[in-house]
């Protein structure tokens, strides 16, 4: 029977490993990317295969303004995270709020578009293959925006209560990674749906 114990050695200087929050979020992003990839593949596969109903070309209008809103929110969240790193709470709060507003605008735009598609063109998720794949893909992305906005709002509330400072900067960075991911997905969805798909 062995009675070996581990040695007590002064920890070597310079042993630093990545921050687990970033690694965890990166893993989540990789997994989510796989999910989105499958929905994109389905969308592309079914292009032109609908038996009936409106086609993308007939009904889609490129949402340029709202896309700019969403992509700008990536810029604002980036600078918000940077200013928090430097302890500039006020700037952080302002930019963070702006991010939420821009994200909210994007969602509003999606809602407008869906309203038009459903009521003016009769395109629903059950209309045809295009309807199914379109609403699923854009809806999946939209649900991720909603979740992101909820998390951003929670942080906003904490910030308003004065509890978000330089010490929380690493965690805020992790959250902004998620937000950048949501925007990157939109770039892909936008390209596939509104550019390639028409």
């Amino acid at each position, binding site marked *: 029977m062995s009675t070996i114990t*581990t040695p007590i050695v002064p920890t070597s200087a310079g042993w630093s490993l990545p921050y687990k929050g970033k*690694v*965890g979020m990166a893993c989540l992003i990789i997994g989510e990317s796989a999910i989105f990839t*499958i*929905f994109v593949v389905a969308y592309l*596969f079914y292009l032109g295969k609908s038996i009936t109903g409106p086609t993308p070309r007939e009904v889609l209008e490129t949402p340029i303004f709202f896309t700019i809103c969403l992509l700008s929110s990536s810029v604002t969240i980036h600078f918000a995270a940077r200013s928090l790193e430097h302890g500039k709470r006020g700037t952080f709060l302002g930019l963070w709020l702006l991010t939420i507003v821009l994200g909210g605008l994007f969602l509003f735009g999606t809602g407008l578009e869906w309203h038009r598609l459903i009521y003016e063109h009769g395109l629903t998720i059950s209309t045809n293959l295009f309807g*199914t794949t379109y609403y699923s893909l854009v809806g999946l992305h939209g649900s991720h925006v909603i979740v992101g906005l909820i998390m951003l709002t929670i942080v906003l509330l904490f910030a308003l209560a004065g509890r978000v400072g330089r010490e929380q900067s690493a965690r805020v960075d992790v959250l902004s990674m998620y937000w950048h991911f949501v925007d990157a997905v939109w770039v892909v969805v936008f390209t596939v749906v509104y550019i390639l798909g028409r």
Partner: protein
Amino acid sequence: MSSDALAIETAGAAGKPWVETLHEWVTTVDHKRLGILYIVFALCFLVVGGIEATLMRIQLIRPHNDFVSPQVFNRLFTMHGTTMIFFVAMPVLFGFANYLIPLMVGARDMAFPRLNAFGFWLTAFGGLLLNFSFVSGSGLYGAGTAPDVGWWAYAPLTAHAFSPGHSSDYWTISLLVSGFGSIATAINIIATVLCLRCPGMKLSRMPLLAWMNMVMAAMVLIAITPLSAAQIMLLVDRYLGGHFFDTQAGGSAAIWMHFFWIFGHPEVYILIIPCFAFISEIVPVFSRKPIFGYPVMVAATVCIGFVSMSVWAHHMFTIGMKSYANGFFTFTTMVVGIPTGIKIFNWLGTMWGGKIIFKTPMLFCIGFLFQFLIAGLTGIMLGAAPFDWQLGGSYFVVAHFHYVIVGGILFALFGAFYYWYPKITGRMMSESLGKLHFWLFVIGFHLTFDTMHIPGILGMPRRIYTYEPGRGWDALNLIVTLGTFVQGIAILIFVANLILSYFHGPLAGNDPWDAWTLEWSVSSPPPAYNFAVIPTVESRRPLWDLKHPEDPDSRYE
């Protein structure tokens, strides 16, 4: 109050009230306790899945048998497959990973303890939800709506037209939920391995178990998620009127197959790679030599991770893909056999020139080597598309994958149980019961699964509740069924060993096997905090260095 992760608590005046113990376990975020919860959960479902298998084998013991109806049989094979893959194999492997990784990398816990608990309870809920389907409500053919669409749930069998009621929804939702649990665990494993290693433990000094579980976790991230996506699509079809897999609306049944197998093939590597890890930890200790070719073992595992993402359509050779597609997937399937096969040589190289100790963990490893070799070879046969045109969808395939899962994965798991049980509980398992378990199981396993190849060769397809007499399948099916009972007895002996040893096994001490990785440096069972002081390591075998200061590994790496 005991700080041991697994102390023998007795209710009553001397101990805590059982409610408090139960509460501790339900709310635990300790990786060791969660590991045990995963393992116990998996063992319970192993019994459930085993009963499902036994019922099927009784039905198939002779042609035109009427032990169960076709409807019940179809539910049984669906539930057996789904339960064994998702609620036995994955949880038990996550359980061992959870228990061992922090101890092996010198950490106090996993990176995200609460996420760990969340992942476990999602999996547990999924398992309970799936099995609840046996009793809930009435389906088309009477009481109980367990799914009966096969564990792959091919479209359009899962459409409302062919699957009325909710049975397919139980399959979809319970796997969707437990899938998220698996993703949570995968995130945890990667973050732990990358961020919580103790000082000095460079990636090239990590135990192979840590490496292999990290590769497995990375595969979970990109393989389970396609299944989740497909299941969301299926729910859209069934409840929102979508047409993803609706062939009447121009949808494709084949695309479900692609999505499913993009998950399904890496999934089987997700299951086997942690078992490679067990073999890679146990064989060296019982051969008294380090693993032969550590860098290549790592490289081969990573290679498998990548290449296995490109072979999925070898499960679809019969669906009428073009010849160049069939050729491509034949090629990639054969290629993935190379890094897999090489590992066998590395393990043999480890044993070569060693001083092999034939205790129960090693016996199961040797069984693994033999059976995994054969399973790999029948896999090569199936990988040649034309050969698969005959053998696919037949009992030959069933024999092949049970050879991998039972002959490979389960044998490696048994080895892992016997090897790490002393660390987890502080007591040794009985060697004699262990050897009895091993020999009985070997006999039962070979009786069943060697024989099972033959009906496939003679034209017997899979997933049939009965078969025609006089096709040469009758006696073979009888033998296959008899072997099932022998295996069942062996498993009962194993369970008895687990329970009896817990109360009466000899105390193990820190390091009963004279092993070399960090988990053997702490007490058995380990304290809740794992290490009093986080260790610093200088080689792959820190305990070897301490036991052999005149000849430390650090000199050679």
